[in-house]
């Protein structure tokens, strides 16, 4: 535990950034009067309510304050986000600073490190809802330090999920270590009674993500994080489009957590509204936003990350973003109690998802006995035992090729080297070859990607 203090000192010294001591930060949290994200999550879970949170981030500080305030005024989100720009994510701080100086509007998010922790405190204090930092940094140590010094109580990311979808060649060893640092600081804070919510980004590359891959990765990250002392985990999963599969996947989160994570860890299932190619048509987009919220409700998700009806076009206007929250929140209305799904189908799907996850992580856990979980993960990615589609990073093979089945659920065209049992493979083969005409693979995959944006789910349904 002294270890982390030394690491921290070195990190801060190397950077040219002023930061308060950890004690001061702890005191800041102790003096806090508004609820933390962890507290909101815990109450929501007990009350069986779903919390609503948008993404949002602009370059300029004053504009960011306005954005948060306006969003809060227009749509009362339960938690608000500070989405970080892509320069900061990759620690290209000079480029961020250059953009800040010349034209902050060119930034696709808020450059938190450049603005500094006092500004972060201003952000947190300017609104009622607590903030979460959302980004995509393989090495988020500095960003995290600025965030907690700013009194922010929730931080997204992990050594796998914030590396593979976000960078081309950052070694996993580097990102896993950097995130272990973040988790150990969380552990340290927890010892002082300060609970930081750590959200794991199960969305990964977002497009056609097979549920078991998302769940396997976040489970492994959850094991690493809890080993490092993290006590509060939000585990997110990206809506894929088939309601039965999505509900089953979300429900699997708590089942897996109770089996593999230490008792006493607070775990919250989070749904990310559809993260693939979004419909351009505003009504279809709104429908998809509502649909996502309905999926979250049916599954009992504790939190929903909303989308806007401008998703297909670009970073949304504040009105469109607020509209997304309102459209999603409609799904919490009691009048939709009548909407239900076939629970036996969900259970069946959930059994298979859990099984797939366990088959995927089995070789990793086995190898981990000889070394460490961290090394086992690196080894597994090298050999393709852990893998995901559409990886941006060279450190995943991307031999997995997903497709949709006749019901729109996400299955495997190729499973790469994932260690699936014969039964799992047979079921997948049956589902994939099922029913509808397969054109050439490229056409099929692009139809599956543009499922909601090109009306293919309509065509599919008609079959």
């Amino acid at each position: 535990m002294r270890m982390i203090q030394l690491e921290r000192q070195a990190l801060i010294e190397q950077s040219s950034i002023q930061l308060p001591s950890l004690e001061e930060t702890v005191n800041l949290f102790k003096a806090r009067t508004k609820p933390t994200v962890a507290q909101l999550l815990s109450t929501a879970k007990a009350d069986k309510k779903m919390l609503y949170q948008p993404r949002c981030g602009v370059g300029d500080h004053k504009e960011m304050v306005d954005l948060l305030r306006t969003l809060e005024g227009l749509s009362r989100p339960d938690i608000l986000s500070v989405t970080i720009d892509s320069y900061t994510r990759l620690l290209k701080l000079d480029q961020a600073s250059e953009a800040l100086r010349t034209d902050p509007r060119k930034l696709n998010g808020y450059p938190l490190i450049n603005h500094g922790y006092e500004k972060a405190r201003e952000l947190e204090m300017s609104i009622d809802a607590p903030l979460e930092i959302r980004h995509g940094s393989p090495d988020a140590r500095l960003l995290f330090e600025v965030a907690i010094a700013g009194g922010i109580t929730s931080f997204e990311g992990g050594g796998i999920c914030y590396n593979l979808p976000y960078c081309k060649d950052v070694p996993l060893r580097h990102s896993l270590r950097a995130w272990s640092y973040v988790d150990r600081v969380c552990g340290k804070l927890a010892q002082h009674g300060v609970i930081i919510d750590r959200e794991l980004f199960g969305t990964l590359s977002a497009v056609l993500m097979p549920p078991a891959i998302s769940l396997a990765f976040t489970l492994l990250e959850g094991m690493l994080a809890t080993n490092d002392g993290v006590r509060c985990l939000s585990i997110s999963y990206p809506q894929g489009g088939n309601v039965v599969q999505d509900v089953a996947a979300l429900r699997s989160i708590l089942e897996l957590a109770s089996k593999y994570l230490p008792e006493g860890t607070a775990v919250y299932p989070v749904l990310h509204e559809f993260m693939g190619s979004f419909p351009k048509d505003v009504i279809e987009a709104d429908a998809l936003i509502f649909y996502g919220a309905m999926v979250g409700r049916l599954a009992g998700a504790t939190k929903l990350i909303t989308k806007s009806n401008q998703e297909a076009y670009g970073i949304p206007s504040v009105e469109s973003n607020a509209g997304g929250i309102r459209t999603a929140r409609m799904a919490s209305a009691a009048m939709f109690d009548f909407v239900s799904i076939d629970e036996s189908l969900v259970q069946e799907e959930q059994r298979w998802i859990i099984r797939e996850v366990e088959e995927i992580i089995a070789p990793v856990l086995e190898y981990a006995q000889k070394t460490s979980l961290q090394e086992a993960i690196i080894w597994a990615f090298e050999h393709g035992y852990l893998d995901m589609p559409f990886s941006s990073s060279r450190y995943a093979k991307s031999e997995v090729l997903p497709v949709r089945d006749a019901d729109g659920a996400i299955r495997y065209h190729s499973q790469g080297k994932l260690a699936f049992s014969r039964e799992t493979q047979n079921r997948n083969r049956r589902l994939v070859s099922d029913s509808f005409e397969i054109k050439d693979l490229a056409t099929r995959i692009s139809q599956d990607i543009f499922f909601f944006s090109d009306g293919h789910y309509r065509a599919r349904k008609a079959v």
Partner: protein
Amino acid sequence: MKKNKSKIILGVTESDAHVVANHLIAYQLRTNGYEVVNLGPCTSVAEFAEAYCWNPDASALVIGSLNGHALGDLKELLQYKEEGKIRCPVILGGNLSVGADKNRKDLEKFFEIGVDVVLDSINELLPALEHLNQNERLVV
């Protein structure tokens, strides 16, 4: 057809990790007989130039960008072209500016920094490659 043998250098801009369209384009070009050197996401102008250096027979540089940072990421392009380090036409496509409200006029800026062709959608890429001989600046 000579066209169908030509070589394309493909990649995504430096600060941008979006890779799905990149995979689809690579697949599509290969299916249509092109040879593709895919540099993938997060590719700096320097890396594009280096790849061109190794592949001077490339008939085009096809760059994708989705995160809205295209203009910033490509600002050195003109310099590389002027210094002769990139001599083939440069095609740019994707989501080129931050925000949902796009202004057609903003595209002019890309021509100023050395882009030759700006496209909206993947479907426009094959036809645009066909047109390249005419060496004209084309906005579809």
